[in-house]
């Protein structure tokens, strides 16, 4: 019985915090659905037998329409629905707010593979190694079409779009190996765009990170790129350059030319590299050329990681604007 069950599962493994929460909601829904299906099926069967043609059951009917009944069975589904909505919306919202202490890992999807890079510089393809018990946030983008990063054991899924970042987070709770699927149809090799997520003991994870000795941290690679593309000639440590300083900019609120503000997150940095004229910092002229053709999505990720590592040298310098 047991080997059969393991080769023929009827319920997926729960390997993340979200999995437990989603399953609870799912089981509640199964109960509700079974209950109503049973009501309908049983009454169908009961009426079908009792009121079959020629049966002796009484057909005296007092009211052919029954307003109270109609209102009741309009209201009950409405109330139940409202309850499910609130419950599921809460979970959904939480699924989009990664905890501050999350490990951030970059994912680049392309036809038909997952390229993953850890901040420490470890790269892997179609594999994702993560520690158990620590929230992981994926910062994802695609090089070509829309993909979707789906780990059934974690009950999370998020489409991965070209020229844009989407994020997904989860808190793995169980050591093991789990499927990674591409869930958004992406062309011929869609079904083979699969991988494995390895949830490891934190110490094993550290060992794994260190095990690949030649890895250069993403921020370091990013710094080299920063110099290679001569970004540093304009974006200097202080605000004396032709472009704004990037020290301490990550995560801060930036005031733009048109009076609006924006949070300098990965999307903002990426947009500024691709389309520098789109969101110009207040006080600066739109002189930066686009680097869209020169910089690959992986390199953008490395630049972001570098910019993230730039802490403000002095608090005073930050407020200064031309």
């Amino acid at each position, binding site marked *: 019985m047991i080997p059969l069950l393991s080769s023929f599962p009827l319920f997926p493994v729960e390997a993340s915090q979200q999995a437990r929460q989603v399953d609870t909601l799912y089981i509640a829904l199964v109960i509700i659905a079974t209950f109503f299906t049973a009501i309908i099926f049983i009454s169908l069967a009961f009426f079908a037998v009792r009121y079959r043609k020629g049966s002796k059951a009484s*057909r005296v009917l007092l009211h052919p329409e029954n307003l109270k009944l109609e209102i009741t069975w309009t209201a009950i589904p409405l109330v139940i629905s409202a309850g499910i*909505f609130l419950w599921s919306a809460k979970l959904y919202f939480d699924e989009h707010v990664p905890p501050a202490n999350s490990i951030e890992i970059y994912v680049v999807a392309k036809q038909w593979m997952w390229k993953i890079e850890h901040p420490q510089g470890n790269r892997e393809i179609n594999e994702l190694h993560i520690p158990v018990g620590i929230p992981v946030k994926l910062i994802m983008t695609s090089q070509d079409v*829309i993909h979707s990063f789906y780990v059934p054991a974690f009950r999370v899924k998020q489409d991965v779009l070209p020229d844009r970042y989407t994020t997904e987070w989860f808190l793995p709770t169980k050591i093991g190996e789990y499927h990674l699927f591409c869930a958004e149809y992406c062309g011929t090799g869609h079904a083979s765009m699969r991988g494995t997520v390895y949830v490891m003991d934190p110490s094993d994870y550290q060992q794994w990170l260190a095990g690949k000795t030649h890895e250069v941290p993403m921020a370091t690679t990013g710094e080299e790129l920063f110099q290679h593309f001569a970004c540093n000639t304009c974006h200097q440590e202080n605000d004396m350059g032709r472009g704004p300083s990037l020290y301490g900019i990550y995560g801060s609120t930036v005031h733009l030319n048109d009076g609006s503000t924006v949070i300098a997150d990965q999307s903002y940095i990426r947009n500024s590299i691709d389309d520098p004229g789109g969101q110009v910092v207040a006080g600066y002229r739109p002189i930066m050329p686009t680097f869209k053709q020169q910089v690959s999505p992986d390199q953008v990720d490395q630049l972001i990681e570098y910019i993230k590592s730039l802490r403000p040298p002095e608090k005073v310098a930050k407020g200064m604007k031309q």
Partner: protein
Amino acid sequence: MNTEQTVDYLNAGYGPKSWLLTTDHKRIAILYLISITFFFFVGGFFALIMRLELLTPQADVVSAHTYNELFSMHGITMIFFFLVPSIPAVLGNFLVPLMIGARDLAFPRLNLLSWYLYIFGGIFTLVAMLTGGIDTGWTFYTPFSSAYSTTNVIPVVTGIFILGFSSILTGLNFIVTIHKMRAPGLTWFRLPLFIWAQYATSVIIVLATPVLAITLALLGVERIFRVGIFDPALGGDPLLFQHLFWFYSHPAVYIMVLPSMGVVSELVTCFSRKRIFGYYFMAGAIMAIAALGFLVWGHHMFVSGQSVYAGMVFSALSYFVAVPSAVKVFNWTATLYKGNISFHTPLLYAFGFIGLFTIGGLTGLFLAALAVDVHVTDTYFVVAHFHYIMVGGAVMGYLGGIHYWWPKITGRMYNEGWAKFSALILFVGFNLTFFPQFILGYLGMPRRYHVYPPEFQVLNVLSTAGATILGVGYLIPFTYLIWSLRKGKQAGPNPWNATGLEWKTPSPPPPHNFDKVPIVTEGAYAYPPILTTEGTHGGS
């Protein structure tokens, strides 16, 4: 017997010209019946090969690319060329004028044009699919469809564009006909629910189809000129495509299932010999579904990168659609209460519809529940869910309707024993095919996969076994219905003793439907009261 002498719509003229140039709504319905049956079996054939491939975890029947073409062609054929036109274009075309006591639809020539557009678009698409293939899925998501696919995207999209006009013309025709051509005394709230359903469906068609048309046109422009409308690499936004696409394609689900709901209301009342329970709520629910169905398209996009807040709005609105659907199921069930039920084949299909639609509808709640949807969207759970609605719902209703009105359409009865047997086979085959897919989906098997991890195999084998039964099940009615054309018993004008104007004229009806314009004095389903405790049934 005496039908030999009387002129009916079938013997009013002979030869291909009398059919291909006809403006008689009943003949056009027959043209549609033949063409959609053809497309149904084409689409079913694609499905069978897919199920065959999915027997094993490896690719052994077809290649990845062929499989992708198969599911795309299956979806496109079944949705655009079978389900959307099925009940409206066949039963609706035949019955709307008959049920409201009109001589024809308001615009008979437009009606014929609509069939020509359908058949032209259909053949165009089919040829395009078979010559150059199409591997985008029926959803045509950008930028894959506009910049990456190397298949015949433009011709296929053109075919669907043409088909869109056919739909719009049919919808427009029904709306005008129902508004302007009802028999004297036939007020809105005396209309059979089938007419309400056709009306609501037409409203959806007319309002949603143009958006699909323009979206596909923009996709074509993007693909031909390599410019960015939806392609993010060129500044476009693929989510805009998804919004526009689902603005049509979610309501399209109701285009497919609402007419079936109308059919089921006719069947349940006729065979329990009772007025429908809660007529006003039923009519209201139809219109509510049609209207609310337009507010929920974003629930196809919960993981697409759509704003979290928009997702919540769409989720909340989705639950409002669930309510009128639930009301309808309750009312059908309540109609049976204290009825006088005789189990003819159409009623079996109606039972099948109610049961399967209930399961399909309730699993819709799972998908509207945001966090659960995140897990099951784009998996087999979704596949199972929409097949319960579209095959379990729409096709069951369609077959029920075909059986119910077959004597009216052809003047002949089919073999009841075979019919009941095939209804049972279809019900069993359907559940065996699609129920395992719910489990597969929750386990996490993504859709559109031709190879899969081995632990999913057992459920896939069950599903394929069911699909085989289902395939055979569809061939049985095809056979005995054709047989009945020659050998079936004469039906007479009203074999079911049903109310409704369509039964007050001979079967098959004369070319102009009614010799005298009927005058309506009572509401729909005015079955005589069923007599009391003695149990003597009060059929008229």
